[in-house]
């Protein structure tokens, strides 16, 4: 297949998409230089507790991923963020700040996403009120210290999940839907009900987008089995009362009436935004003007970046994506990269 055995692919990012891309390329017989800003593989998977829709342990998934990466063809260069790709005599040069770190014949960018900084939605009081947390913070608490979710030493009485924080919102310049927050809210609501069976859990949503396989079923399970309450209305403001509980105001749009509830925890289901370490490609803007995510030359047909021979994107650096989707995208990008090297 490949005439020159010395071809090398660089994969930037070691989250689900990067893992999948690196493993696939290695399996296809190519040497992979693998970069990540962190010292370990997994990316945000390291911080998750259970994965939707079937509540698989994130650690197990990570372990399975890790088992695949032990091949001799994968060369890890972790602990350094690649943020720039230069072109030099047909080689792609990887830069970290202004330092050359390596080079490759083809690069797969899998730098993932960042979570939206909830302080930008000041009306929810995140960063001001202790009882307002974000979904990844809840994930962390569930994973490492569920006891920290008690309120004044007691099981919390009321918990609210606020959907669409940092999504679908012109006020903060993010008009797209982050897609995964809905099901995250459903999953975490169930977990809270299991942890604190006496607790009322209310999800405030605008539209419930349970698009993935098993998501709608999880939604129904949350309603029926776990009695999670769903109220159709976006939370308008959160304020703190004297007991440091949070008072929320929303409209119940199905009743057409304003609504108020006092809760012990508010969980903001924060959306996904482009990673601050997203790779910039020299002399070219390959990002979507509207969203800031990387954009494929033709999203219908593949992962190639426009005007950038040899550079491919994979996973959530191209927009909000679930873990299986990111992994599949990494696999696909690796095969496209191989195809590119063969045809070159």
């Amino acid at each position, binding site marked *: 297949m490949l005439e020159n055995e010395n071809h090398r692919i660089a994969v930037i990012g070691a989250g689900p998409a990067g893992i999948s891309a690196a493993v696939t390329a290695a399996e296809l017989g190519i040497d992979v230089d693998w970069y990540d800003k962190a010292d370990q593989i997994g990316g945000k998977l390291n911080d998750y507790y259970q994965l939707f829709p079937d509540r698989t342990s994130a650690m197990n998934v990570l372990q399975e991923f890790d088992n695949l990466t032990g091949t001799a063809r994968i060369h890890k260069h972790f602990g350094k963020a690649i943020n720039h790709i230069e072109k030099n005599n047909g080689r792609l040069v990887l830069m970290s700040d202004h330092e050359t770190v390596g080079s490759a014949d083809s690069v797969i960018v899998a730098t993932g996403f960042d979570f939206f900084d909830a302080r930008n939605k000041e009306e929810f009081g995140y960063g001001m009120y202790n009882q307002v947390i974000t979904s990844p913070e809840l994930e962390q608490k569930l994973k490492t210290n569920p006891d920290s979710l008690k309120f004044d030493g007691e099981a919390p009485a009321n918990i609210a999940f606020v959907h669409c924080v940092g999504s679908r919102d012109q006020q903060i310049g993010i008009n797209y839907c982050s897609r995964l927050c809905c099901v995250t809210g459903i999953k975490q609501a169930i977990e809270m009900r299991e942890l604190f069976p006496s607790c009322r859990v209310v999800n405030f949503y605008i539209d419930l987008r349970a698009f993935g396989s098993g998501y709608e079923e999880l939604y129904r399970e949350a309603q029926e089995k776990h009695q999670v309450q769903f109220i159709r209305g976006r939370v308008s403001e959160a304020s*703190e009362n004297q007991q440091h509980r949070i008072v929320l105001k929303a409209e119940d749009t199905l009743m057409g009436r304003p609504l108020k509830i006092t809760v012990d925890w508010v969980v903001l289901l924060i959306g996904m935004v482009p990673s601050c370490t997203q790779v910039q490609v020299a002399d070219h803007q390959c990002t979507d003007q509207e969203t800031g995510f990387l954009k494929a030359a033709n999203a219908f047909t593949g992962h190639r970046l426009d005007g950038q021979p040899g550079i491919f994107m994979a996973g959530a650096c191209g927009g909000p994506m679930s873990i299986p989707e990111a992994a599949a995208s990494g696999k696909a990008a690796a095969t496209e990269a191989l195809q590119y090297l063969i045809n070159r």
Partner: protein
Amino acid sequence: MKQYWKDYQKEIADDNYFYVRSCIRQNFFPGAENLFIDILKNKLGKTVFEDAEHTTCTGIGYHTDVVPLETTMTVIARQFALMKEKGYRNMIASCVTSFGLYSEVLDMWKHQPELKEKIAGYLMEATGRTFEEPENMVHASDILYKYRNEIASIAKYKLINKTTGEPLKVVDHIGCHYAKTFPERGVGGSEFPQVLTGLITAWGGQTVDYPERRHCCGFGFRNYLVQPNRGYSISQSKIKLESMKPYEPDLIIANCPGCSMFLDRWQYTLEETEGAVYGTCGNKIPVFTHEELAGLVLGYDPWEIGLQTHQVPVEALLDKIGVEYNPDLKYTDRQGNLIGEPELINQHVC
């Protein structure tokens, strides 16, 4: 992406101001605006000019839908024309609704230049004047915010309970039209504006964050101005007062003249109708404007700055801070003669 709102700062010109007065403030807080001018001129050494020819901005008429948009715009253009004629570029509005409306008009002109042209034509036709937009457009409370530390350095009193040494608990109420209409034009944005909090903390007090902090005072324009509609108005203030009551605030301050008046008057009405009292020791909570608060810490005489025009008596608060005043001069005229006294409202001593 935008910055965090609470970090939002805006440009506030440092001198040479053209001042436009507020209808409501002049009526109900008659000492406040002259006090503000005096602080600017004599305490901060600034130049501030008031043109006798300026008028109402028509804001209340606009928001009660008896003055159309283009009329309001032309009246505002006339104020800008006066400012230009006198050689000023920095405008200070006393009224929060005026400030909001000026901001709104400037924003609409930016997006619809043809509308600005049309208004220029109206102004020329009606008055023969031409105008220029101000370079800097702020609310009076922005100026005090800018110079809060200078004021603190020359202050005679602090917002501290003389007996206990504790900082006073101060509720800040921001007029809705200050930052809700254009968050980027308010110090600190629309959710948690810093403009009054900055004054409170710089002058020794402590801000109270209570659940209904961001709720409207309930003026509601037509919902107050027409007598049978006033239930709406008082109900909104009641929501706020009930929400702040458990925090036992010593004082409320507001930068909007309407809010200051309503939070003051509705406490009286709520006591009369429902027997409800929201302060401690059976007292109501005094309500100050930002100018009055500055005047108080700077040691102005309480009666010279108009604190006797409040329905909620202020003496308990003055005593708490240790402000000197002569009770005999409260209801006197300029020459010191007693004008007569309003019907007295009970005041309790803790």
